């Protein structure tokens, strides 16, 4: 373990902003994309009249 405390972990040896910025941006992008795709799919399904779904 390289980290003595939680603060140490967040500080990343002085590179905190850059390291967490990078990992955070990737995490954000990779969370938003599946949510957008879910919304896209729901929009398609919503366009189909309920009657056709029942058949």
């Amino acid at each position, binding site marked *: *373990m*390289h*980290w003595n405390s939680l603060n140490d*972990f967040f500080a*990343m*040896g*002085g*590179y905190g*902003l*850059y*390291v967490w*910025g*990078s*990992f955070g*941006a*990737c995490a954000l*992008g*990779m969370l938003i*994309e*599946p949510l957008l*795709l879910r919304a*896209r*799919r729901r929009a*398609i*399904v919503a*366009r*189909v009249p309920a009657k*056709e*779904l029942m*058949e």
Partner: protein
Amino acid sequence: MNAPLINWYKFSSPATFYPLAGKLIPWFAAATILLAAVGLWISFFVAPTDAQQGEGYRIIFVHVAASWMSMFIYCVMAFWSAMCLSFNTRLSGMMASALAPTGAMFAFLSLLTGSLWGKPMWGAWWVWDARLTSQLILFFLYLGFMALQSAIDDPRRADKAGAILSLVGVINVPIIYFSVQWWNTLHQGASVSMTKSPSMAQTMLWGMLIMALAFWAYSITMALLRVRCIILEREMTNEWVKKNALE
């Protein structure tokens, strides 16, 4: 002649590929979460501190994975584009369109994480270096592909126009890859190469490879999710969609 083991033409039809993609998605999604968890653990708790770059080097775990994926997805997109032009199968064009947004996101993340690495290490967010510039061109190629496709109403014509653009642009991928050798760049050389043993600690290498696999599984999941949307949007009026796909 022996019958082929798998009839690939069978899956080139959207109607048969749609349910197959649906079955594959949960497996790739689970692989993404598992690999990302292991990759993050190695990135922060196992991999040692770098002698020269301190803790700042940990950016490479996402930077390298995102950069590899942005180039690899482009190659796969070009492959489907070639299939689209030569065999004129509907699914090939859909696959190419399904990959582009994920590839564009990784190209962007590669540039962003690269600039977050460049600022503390080089003292500059951006330099017009061969590696950085060719990667920026890759990002613009993705955007150009998506803009071109969305500008054409007829989906099959859009597929073909996009296919030509992506095939022309694929020349940029080896340029990115070899840029650090061909030109005198500020960007460091490849840390992992196919010919030499890697110039980094074993655990760093494992972290990078596992993160790359996580991004790989993620990209497959997203491409399959998106291609299912595209199939539905384009084939909404077909009987099979009404019968099977929208349950």
